[in-house]
Every structure is written in C-alpha cells, then in structure tokens.
C-alpha cells in the first residue's frame, strides 16, 4: 500500500488488472446503457422535433461565435508573433462517456470509457461543456479513472480573470467544493470572481474556467485569506466529457507532468 501511494511501480500492475476488471465494469454499466438507448428510441416524435429545432438554433448561435473566435485567434497569433512569444496551437480533444460504476465514497473519482487504446495518459486534463472537471489518474486498456477537481488530493493552478491574481485551487472532498490556499490578504479577489486555469505547471491548458469564488473571508490574526470556490463544471450531472491533449509547446515546459497538479 505504501508502495502504491508513494511510488509509480504499481501503476502498470493496476493498468493490467483494470483490463481484468473491465468486463465487470462493462456489465454493471450495461443496464444503464440499455435504459438510455430505450428512452432515446422510444421518445415521442414531437419531442425529438422540438429538440432538433432547439439544437439547430443553438448551433447557429455557436457558429456565429466561432466566426468571431477565428478572427480573434488569428489576430492573437499575429500579435504574439509581433512580441515574439510562442504561438499556441489548438488542443486535440476526444469525447468520452461516463461509465455508471460506483467508486470508493471517500474520494471523488469516476470511470471513463476511453483508455490507453485511445491514447489517454495519466495526468490528462478532463473538461466538460462548462469547465475543468479533473484529470486522469489511472489508465487501463479501454477504460480510465478520473479524479475530480473537488477531490482532496487534487490541486490546480488558477488565475482570477478580472485581476490576474494567481493561486492554487485545492479540492475539498467533504463539501464538494474547492479552496484557494495561501492567498495573502492584500490580493484582489472578490466574491463572484471567475477563476480559469492558468496553465502554469504546463499540465492543464490555459484559460479553461475552473470555478467561481463563493466566499472570501479573513479571520483576524490569520496570514492568509479563506477563499471558497464553487466548481463551474457539472460535476454531479455530467454524462459526457472531453479529454484534452494540450498543445505541445505548453507541455514542454514541465518535464514531469504527472507530479505537478497532484499534491
């Protein structure tokens, strides 16, 4: 147990064993999958039409946003070229599904249906449609285990969008939220501030939303502020997530990415 906690030797053993366990996970997940499929195929036609119309409208909206985004991205690249800072490439993403498999209750972990066959690696960032969800901690051949940002063993470097103050958001398993550690009292952080991943440490890609500051307090006599953060990702309800491969130039900064964001 000590070896597993402190060292990486057993990771290969675990990933081989997870192939043995995968059929069990698959079987457990099967009824949920079948239920989903049934409810999808039995849905009324009007509902489907309605949903289709809604999605079309949303798609149109998103497309117009993307147009703007492309010109902005080009402009950004040009400006970066002017000041000779490295140009960031886009990230590669892969959609993964949750598997309905119960995990140990003391930690916030989940199983995804993609594994090393799909190129998933340990420490890979996981995001959903609204923000960062967590990172991959174990990889098997066709499934992998993710750890949520609210797990008490998880930490992620963040940046306040409004003021640019940097901090580290650590998970709080018990209350399903996060806290910012070691933020001096004079820092410019307010309630409602949006935190995005800062990309420092070269582990999480830069600029993904992480959480909103829900409470800022300073106890007299304390050296640091007490800051609570609510994650913006739908941690409880997510069914589909994105696995992100950060662009190469970001990763090169850090030689050992596995150790950066986990404490």
């Amino acid at each position, binding site marked *: *147990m000590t070896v*597993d*906690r402190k060292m990486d030797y*057993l990771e290969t*053993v*675990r990933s081989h*064993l*997870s192939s*043995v*366990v995968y059929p*069990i*996970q698959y*079987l*457990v997940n099967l009824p*949920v999958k079948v239920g989903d499929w049934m409810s999808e195929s039995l849905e009324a036609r009007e509902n489907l039409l309605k949903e289709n119309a809604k999605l079309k409208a949303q798609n149109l909206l998103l497309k117009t946003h993307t147009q703007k985004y492309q010109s902005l991205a080009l402009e950004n690249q040009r400006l970066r070229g002017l000041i000779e800072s490295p140009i960031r490439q886009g990230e590669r993403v892969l959609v993964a599904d949750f598997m*309905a*498999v*119960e*995990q*140990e*209750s*003391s*930690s916030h*972990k989940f199983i995804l249906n993609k594994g090393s066959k799909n190129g998933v690696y340990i420490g890979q960032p996981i995001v959903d449609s609204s923000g960062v969800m967590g990172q991959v*901690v*174990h990889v098997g051949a066709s499934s992998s*285990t993710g750890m949520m940002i609210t797990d*008490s*063993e998880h930490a992620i470097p963040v940046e306040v969008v409004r003021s640019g103050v940097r901090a580290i958001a650590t998970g709080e*398993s*018990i209350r399903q939220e996060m806290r910012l550690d070691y933020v001096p009292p004079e820092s410019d952080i307010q309630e409602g501030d949006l935190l995005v991943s800062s990309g420092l440490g070269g582990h999480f890609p830069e600029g993904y939303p992480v959480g909103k500051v829900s409470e800022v307090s300073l106890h007299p006599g304390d050296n640091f502020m007490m800051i609570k953060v609510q994650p913006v990702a739908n941690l409880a309800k997510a069914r589909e997530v994105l696995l992100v491969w950060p662009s190469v130039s970001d990763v090169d900064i850090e030689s050992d990415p596995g150790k950066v964001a986990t404490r």
Partner: protein
Amino acid sequence: MVKRHNYWIVLVTFIVALMLTAMPLPDWITVWRPAWVAMVVIYWSMALPQRVSIGTAWFLGILLDVLQGSLLGQHAIGLAIVAYVTVKLHLQIRQHPLYQQSLFVGLLVAVYLSLIVWVNGIIGRPPQSWSFLMPVITSMLLWPWLFVILRDVRRRALIS
C-alpha cells in the same frame, strides 16, 4: 460417483459480488450497501476452507481495489484477514445457528471496514461520520439469505 469440478461456480459468485459492489445506487442507499465481497468470501472460506482461503481473498481484494480506485492492497488486506479468521474458526461457525453466524459476520465486516477506513485516515481521507459502519447492519441482516442461497448453489453444483 464421478467427481465433478464445478469450481467455476465459486468464481461466478465472486464476479456477481464484485458487480453488486460496483453497481450505482442512489446516494442515500449507497451508505447501506452490504459488504458483498466480504460476505461471499466468508461463506466460501467457511464451506471450502481448503479451496478458498487467504490467497483467493487477497487476490479478490486487489481486484476490488482496482475496481474502486482505492489504494492497491487496502481491500486485499481486509479480505485476507477476514478469510484468515474464518478459516481458523470454520469448524465452530458451521455449527452455529444462522443468527449467531450473522453476529460473527457482522463482527468480521466491522473489522474489515474499520481497517479500510483506518488506512484512508492515514493517507489523509478521514471518515466524515460513523456511517461507514452502516454496511455492518445490512450485511448481518442479509447473511441468512445469502447463506441459504449460496448453500443451495453449492449443493446443486455438487461442490464440497
């Protein structure tokens, strides 16, 4: 009579126990989930102590650790201890009526859960309440049924 080798049945019960452990349930029930794997290990190491013993329990525990994403060895050491005690005492326990067996199972499951929670505490995940002991109660209540079912399975499969 020709001796038949139906030991795969034992394997099937272990797999079913693992599945029951991994099955997603509503939050309020999850706390009450019986320690299925521990109970099945207790049954088989009581019925077939020469076949199912500490080694099997340990390997099953490792699988459970992988399945649950806990530290490798956490469940393994718990189940190994459960199997050890059961094998040591199997001749006595077999004589007891079902409700007394339930008490014994409850005690073992309590030890098993406490060990896991203890390790969790060491690595910085202290338990939030005494609710981690709830499975002791459900395991005790379900033991008579599990015992009868597994005994029938064993007799049908002619394992001894």
